[in-house]
């Protein structure tokens, strides 16, 4: 059985797999029209005669939403509220935009349908549904060639009767259907409804995609899909609840960081994934962090998603001097086409160009030497811009990097300092193609003492997927008084969810070694409108006050409390592929790891800097900055006054201040 991680990207579909005790990597050009073609092609190359156990990060649902290429979908709700998915929360995302427009809606006005029926805030039916009206709606849907339907009625999380009725009928009539009490049984109608709408919108596409893969797989194979929460699910579940995958792009990397961190006794990590156009950061404090406040295309997604902050600065970000005399970097990116100046086509300086100009990227090793780098061309352009902008050349290049790093610093501050976490107690876990050239500089801006760079950072996301457990999230709005007498009541409610979770996880057809439950409750002081998610235990009240104090600086012990939602996470611990230790060595790197010296600029000064091949380094090697470590998918810069140590698994552990 071969374990394979498959990550579909814009240009390449990455495969990471273990053959015998060797990890291997395969890149196949992506096939955006039908991503399954590249996925299956790669698997067939890898498999020979073996069975495959595949974990896949799919972008099918994500792209269907971003490109508005989902199914023809209708929205059914109570009459009088048809536009609630359009109005949203009534605010605009940009304060100073006189021409502000909401993102293009997923469902046009004529397919937003109201049915006369109503349940009140106590869960009582105050107006029943008339069968005849359902008949009319069904006919309308068929006449309009609707393929998929989302149903969300007010207070359905208290009483799902009307939604169940609709679902039963619509399924019978052959529609794809999702109902809000099954997707997110939580209050706040807009967020619940739009999450359900997104599910219906991408469901047909995901269903066809997965069915295609299923047809081509062999009986002995197994296949799982990674969700936005970092856990995997079976293909059958992914077909029914594809909304759980729409933000799964960065999930593999965070899971990989979390699992790698656990192996090397680093429980506190700030993940730093710098790509071509953007950078993702997240904070791991003993657990994979989740949030219920994420968005895609400005639409809220209420299902739990790994808590990640994204900033528009990456290797391809473009530098420009504006009319007011200020140098900016990003969010505009040179992308793959035209790409940076040094790739031979671009005309605008990018972050990658600045790194190359300062000697921090080694052209011969750029993507294993496959990417042609035109250093002469770059020098011409640097010369041109430095004259035009009246800045000395190395100062310009270092300035571009400083500005990009400042943007990333701001992103890290948002997930750490501003949430009450001190980055000085964390390690900066770095992956993605461009991160290695920036990590130590970024860490120093935040006084982060250590940078960790795992093996194969450029394809770490595909690798991370292989380490995922099954994760399924359940929630329910309960709106209870938060006092001690409710403890056993809440426990009972959790037991109901647990029964369902136990049933569901057995259906996942992925073998598990162990099942674990995590219980959380969303609590607030009565009258507040934002909840804190806290672990549920007997002393949940003290825990809440404490958390409120820690996060917000005060607590109000005499104030009435409210338990808004209960949340159950069931984790099916999967068998992980073993990660092998690398060859032991002494402090001095093996001779064949050293491949020469180059002049690299740090702080305006040239340093004769040794270059090492990462693959030849052995455990225990110590390298003092300045140094550069090259490998196929990434380059790591060890600036002066920092120091690298290679650990037993081959991770680069960099002490950011050697003093």
């Amino acid at each position, binding site marked *: 059985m071969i374990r394979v991680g498959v990550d579909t990207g814009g240009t390449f579909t990455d495969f990471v797999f273990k053959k015998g005790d060797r990890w291997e990597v395969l890149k196949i050009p992506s096939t955006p029209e039908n991503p399954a073609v590249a996925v299956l092609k790669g698997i067939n190359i890898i498999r020979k005669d073996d069975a495959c156990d595949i974990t896949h990060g799919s972008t099918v649902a994500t792209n269907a939403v971003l490109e508005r290429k989902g199914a023809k979908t209708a929205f059914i709700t109570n009459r009088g509220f048809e536009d609630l998915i359009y109005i949203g929360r009534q*605010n605009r995302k940009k304060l*100073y935009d006189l021409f502000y427009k909401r993102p293009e809606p997923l469902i046009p006005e004529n397919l937003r349908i109201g049915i006369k029926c109503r349940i009140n805030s106590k869960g009582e039916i105050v107006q029943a549904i008339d069968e005849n009206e359902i008949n009319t709606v069904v006919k309308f849907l068929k006449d309009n060639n609707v393929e998929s339907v989302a149903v969300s009625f007010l*207070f359905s999380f208290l009483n799902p009767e009307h939604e169940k009725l609709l679902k039963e009928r619509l399924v019978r009539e052959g529609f794809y259907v999702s109902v809000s009490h099954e997707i997110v049984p939580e209050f706040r109608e807009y967020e619940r409804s739009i999450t359900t709408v997104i599910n219906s919108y991408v469901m047909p596409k995901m269903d066809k995609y997965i069915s295609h893969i299923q047809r081509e797989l062999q009986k002995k194979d197994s296949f799982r899909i990674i969700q936005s929460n970092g856990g995997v699910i079976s293909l059958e579940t992914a077909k029914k609840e594809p909304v759980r995958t729409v933000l799964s792009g960065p999930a593999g990397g965070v899971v990989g960081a979390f699992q790698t961190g656990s192996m090397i006794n680093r429980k506190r990590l700030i993940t730093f994934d710098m790509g071509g156009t953007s950078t993702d950061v997240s904070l791991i404090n003993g657990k994979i962090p989740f949030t219920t406040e994420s968005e895609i295309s400005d639409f809220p997604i209420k299902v739990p998603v790994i808590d990640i902050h994204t900033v528009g600065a990456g290797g391809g970000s473009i530098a420009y001097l504006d*009319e007011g*005399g200020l140098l900016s970097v990003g969010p505009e990116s040179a992308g793959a086409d035209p790409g940076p100046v040094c790739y031979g086509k671009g005309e605008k300086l990018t972050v990658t160009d600045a790194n190359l100009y300062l000697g921090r990227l080694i052209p011969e090793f750029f993507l294993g030497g496959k990417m042609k780098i035109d250093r002469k061309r770059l020098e011409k352009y640097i010369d041109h811009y430095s004259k035009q902008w009246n800045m000395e050349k190395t100062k310009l290049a270092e300035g571009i990097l400083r500005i990009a790093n400042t943007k990333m610093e701001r992103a890290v*501050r948002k997930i750490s300092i501003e949430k009450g976490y001190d980055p000085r107690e964390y390690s900066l876990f770095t992956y993605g193609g461009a991160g290695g050239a920036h990590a130590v500089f970024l860490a120093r801006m935040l006084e982060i003492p250590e940078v960790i760079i795992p093996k194969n950072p450029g394809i770490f996301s595909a690798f991370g997927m292989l380490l995922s457990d099954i994760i399924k999230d359940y929630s329910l709005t309960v709106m209870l008084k938060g006092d001690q007498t409710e403890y056993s009541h809440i426990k009972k409610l959790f037991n109901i969810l647990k029964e369902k979770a136990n049933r569901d996880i057995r259906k996942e057809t992925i073998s598990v070694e162990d099942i674990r439950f995590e219980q959380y409750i969303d609590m607030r002081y009565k009258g507040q409108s934002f909840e804190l998610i806290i672990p549920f235990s007997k002393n949940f009240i003290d825990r809440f006050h404490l958390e409120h104090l820690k996060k917000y*600086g005060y607590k109000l012990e005499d104030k009435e409390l409210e338990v808004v939602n209960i949340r159950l996470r069931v984790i099916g611990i999967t068998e992980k592929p073993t990660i092998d230790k690398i060859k032991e060595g002494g402090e001095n790197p093996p001779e064949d790891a050293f491949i020469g010296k180059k002049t690299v600029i740090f702080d305006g000064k040239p340093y004769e800097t040794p270059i090492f091949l990462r693959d030849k380094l052995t455990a225990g090697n110590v390298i003092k900055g300045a140094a550069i470590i090259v490998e196929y998918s990434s380059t790591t810069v060890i600036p002066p006054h920092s120091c690298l140590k290679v650990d037993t698994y081959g991770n680069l552990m960099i002490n950011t201040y050697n003093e």
Partner: protein
Amino acid sequence: MTDPITLEIFKNKLISIAEEMGINLQKTAYSPNIKERKDFSCAIFDSSGSLISQAAHIPVHLGSMSESVKSAIKNVEFEEGDMVILNDPFRGGTHLPDITVIAPVFYREKLLFFIANRAHHADVGGISAGSMPLSTSIFQEGIIIPPVKLVKKGEINREILEFIKSNVRTPKEREGDFFAQISANITGIRRLNELISRYTEDTVIEYVNALNDYSEKMMRNKISQIPDGDYSFTDYIEDDGAGNRDIKISVDIKIKGSDAVVDFSNSSPQTKGSLNAVRAITLSAVYYVFRSLLDSDDIPVNEGCFRPIEVITKKGTVVDCTYPHGVSAGNVETSQRIVDVVLGALSQAIPEEVPAASQGTMNNVTIGGINPDTGKPFTYYETIGGGMGGFAGGDGESGIQSHMTNTMNTPIEALEFEFPLMVHQYNLRKNSGGKGLFRGGDGIVREIEVLCESEVTVISERRKIPPYGLFGGEPGEVGENIVILKGKKIKEGGKFHRKLKKGDSLIIKTPGGGGYGKAI
């Protein structure tokens, strides 16, 4: 010489300090207006009280906080560890619910900067819960706080605190909000100190000045693109809730080179009702419009940004009222009309950069009573979105907050959990946007049934005089306020106060935006 790289870095740093203060304030505050609706602002000032950096929170505070800081400087001798509180509209405030807390930033015993934040408190006393009454003088609107020290050398001034708390309906919540405002300032002070110790006092001041010059340059660039000339526009506040109608808001804008003079001298005298605006509000509305004309989201809002703009108001007019006139609704309604006239005037100069009128009101609804489920009083306050104006190249957006406000709605399920109310309709008001080549956006219809005896207060505009269209576009539909008493529909005016019985309903139909260009 200023260095373009360091300039960009300082721009980032200063904005992120103001933003972090905002997050701090929002998280720790108690008033729904602060926590949910982000009706607050945080900013940094130089030692003379001029604005250095402000985070984008709510336009109605834009640029006007500087008046508060300057008033505090004039009235109080600052020492390290002090914080001054004020809400007096005639000494640097706007309307009474907006309370500003100001702190000096000392570095090595030298006063270098000020930090301030302003937040809309849920109640500051006065004749009605929520402190947004149909009033005829400032004394009916709540407690007036002149610039006084809430914190003295790091110690909270309990006497002041107790004094304020004794004059409001929900003293515990106010205390919580004050702590939140103080703690936001502490964050700001700490971050500024870190910045100074990392870059030195001289560098920080040098780049603060450079950023002012930068924003000024960007604004001047923009204004120079507007053809030189005189542009005038007049629109009206329909009624002030105290019997006065058609209150004129009139602007004459002179563009010359890179300078703009915005003159409101021809506006009506101040009025008896609460729709008067203090000068600070008028400044905010003008600054909002000019800031919106800039192409980039990224230009710091600071004193330099507004240097090219001179705003002229006449004391004793509805856009620069004097003590002790009522001002509570000037902030929410008159501010919108000031935006309308400034945009209207500019549409003659730069027709492609200005939309037709948006709904031009905030549709303030307050419902209060005794909740039969709990036996306790409740107050529900909300503003409702409407249509935005059409513009060259696109239809106006529908069902959305525009211009001087950007608050979120209360979810129906949250509202019905919390209050004895039931919502029967919350939809777009179809075809209420003005027709035109580019249509105005549609308003909203919101219908609420009260499930127990309640009192309702509505303060709204654009019920008679519609949001204007431009260049042949038709005006948006005017709004409508309707109550259903025992099944009978009664049309109400733009401002009213009424008792409702169990089972009665309130229907608010908000205005559509104006159309742009003649429909083909």
